């Protein structure tokens, strides 16, 4: 009897875990480091994987750096080869825990919440503290998670050559938008 109970219990445990996760494979992350009067330096990644654990408010996003698309093809090439070095660092991660998270409180009105977490890019990790995000749930049970924060280029060990330093902001505005579905 015990032999049957254990796998059965495991199945139930894994089922209950699976129910607490909301995820997307096509989340959007954009960053912008534009300087007024110069060409726009902006890229969008629409293939970000993001998972939210509605049990404890933990979330994690995996951004494949090669998936960042620029308007300008040459800029995209330079970003991958010289700045992000995406052959060596193909992944960026963004994760955190939402403070005072309560799944029951999420409704169709976007509410703001704070979170503490980190951003890993170019092999370097930087803490993100007390950042705000918006969370809401649509009628068809989709959780919307969005927000923005600033990141310093210098924190990620990225060198900007002096020739282009005027055209590139040292502070990068990062925005994210995830439409999460129950797994």
């Amino acid at each position, binding site marked *: 009897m015990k032999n049957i109970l254990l796998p059965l219990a495991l199945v139930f445990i894994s089922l209950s875990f699976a129910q607490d996760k909301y995820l997307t494979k096509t989340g959007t992350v954009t960053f912008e480091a534009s300087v007024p009067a110069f060409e726009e330096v902006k890229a969008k990644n629409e293939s970000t994987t993001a998972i939210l654990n509605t049990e404890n408010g933990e979330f*994690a996003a995996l951004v*494949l750096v090669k998936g960042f698309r620029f308007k300008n093809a040459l800029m995209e090439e330079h970003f991958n080869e010289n700045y992000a070095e995406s052959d060596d660092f193909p992944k960026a991660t963004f994760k955190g825990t939402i403070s005072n998270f309560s799944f029951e409180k999420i409704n169709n009105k976007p509410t703001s919440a704070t979170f503490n977490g980190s951003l890993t890019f170019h092999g370097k990790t930087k803490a993100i503290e007390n950042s705000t995000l918006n969370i809401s749930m649509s009628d068809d049970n989709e959780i919307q998670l969005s927000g923005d924060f600033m990141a310093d280029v210098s924190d990620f060990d990225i060198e900007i050559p002096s020739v282009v330093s005027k055209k590139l902001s040292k502070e990068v505005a990062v925005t994210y938008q995830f439409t999460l579905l129950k797994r």
Partner: protein
Amino acid sequence: MKKKLWILLVLFAILGVIGYNYVYQDHRNISTESASYTVTASELINQFQENATVSQEKYLNKTIQITGTVTAKSDNALTLDNAAFCSLSNATKFALNSTVTIKGRCIGYDDLLEEIKLDQCTLIN
């Protein structure tokens, strides 16, 4: 003298055109590129799970052609053999559980979901 001026002017114009075309070159067109590798989706995930670093070096940013069974789909994406998530360039209709071959650019291995991700995918057949 006037002739020299003309030559100089033409030279500048040519340089200008070359420079412009370099700075504002077109994006890669994955759908017209020929595939660097042709594999099945399950074979591809096996390679990534065996050795992620080597596979990454081999496939990252490459145009690859993969075959597999459609295990999940949405308007702009499909999953082959629960192993390769392919974002489509254009919304294309697929039947669930059908076997298809698609071509796209490998953007990496998603270790949260243990899937390979491709973008700019198009249907071959």
